[in-house]
């Protein structure tokens, strides 16, 4: 059975919302580096940070992060 892969749509959703990394970081009260490293797949956030980002963007969590087979 293939390992599930994490699909990340943070950058797409952020740019669609017309936000810069800094603006999203300010809304979510995280550092810009956190947003940048998540978008570039350097860092996988915890559920808390993921939910915070989803809330800051006004979308459900599974729009930002999704597991596919």
């Amino acid at each position, binding site marked *: 059975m293939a390992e599930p892969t994490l699909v990340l749509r943070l950058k797409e959703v952020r740019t669609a919302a017309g936000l810069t990394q800094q603006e999203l*970081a300010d809304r979510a009260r*995280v*550092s*810009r*580096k*956190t947003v*940048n*490293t998540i*978008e*570039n797949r*350097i*860092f996988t*956030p*915890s559920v808390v*940070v993921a939910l915070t980002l989803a809330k800051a963007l006004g979308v459900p969590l599974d729009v930002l992060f999704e597991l596919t087979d």
Partner: protein
Amino acid sequence: MGRATAEEMKSRARARLGRQRLEWGLLACLVLAAVILMVVAARAPEAALLSMTAVFFALVVLGLVVVMAFDLWGKRQADLEVLAGGPDRDQVQSSEAFGLVFLAALGLLYMAFGVGAGWRIASETGDLDDWWSAIFSLAMPGVVMSTVLSDKIRTRQACALPKPADELVIHFRRHALVWSFRATLVALAAVYVAGLYDGRLAVAGAPIVFEAAALTAALRYWWLDRAASHG
């Protein structure tokens, strides 16, 4: 209780800054009084015990004023940052990463002294200065590693308490620790082999192991932080 709005926090910070002006004034009065006391005591050498007691109290007051001034300065910076809209987290993280590299690089100097001192102590020709050098060679690695092992981040404010580090900082520190552990094992193996050849080399090489651990951790942490800044 609801979270205070940004405007309420700014209003409170302004009020605190106003009260701090009064506290600065009181501290200045204390300094003036201590200085006057010392001058008066110096002009009355005939009552030596009384003069010494007066100078002692004046010095105690001055010491307390310095401690209180540092505390006040830290609070002032914190309030100024609240008024400015809060500190820039990215800058705080970057300055901490650069500071760690600086401290670890400074540790190379301490290490050089520590190796020489360790060799002399192991050769039983060391004096008290060598003992101090050998012990102080642990200082910089100690500071760097305690920061990397911590889950707090220091702000740039004087005397301000460290704040909980965010997830990314902790993630970077864990990566830095993994690299540091690898470097420690390599350095330890080298010192162990050298110690088999000559026992004194094991003692003299110990500061190198600590410095290798600290420098690797600091450089890796700085590199990850730098990589996170781009893109």
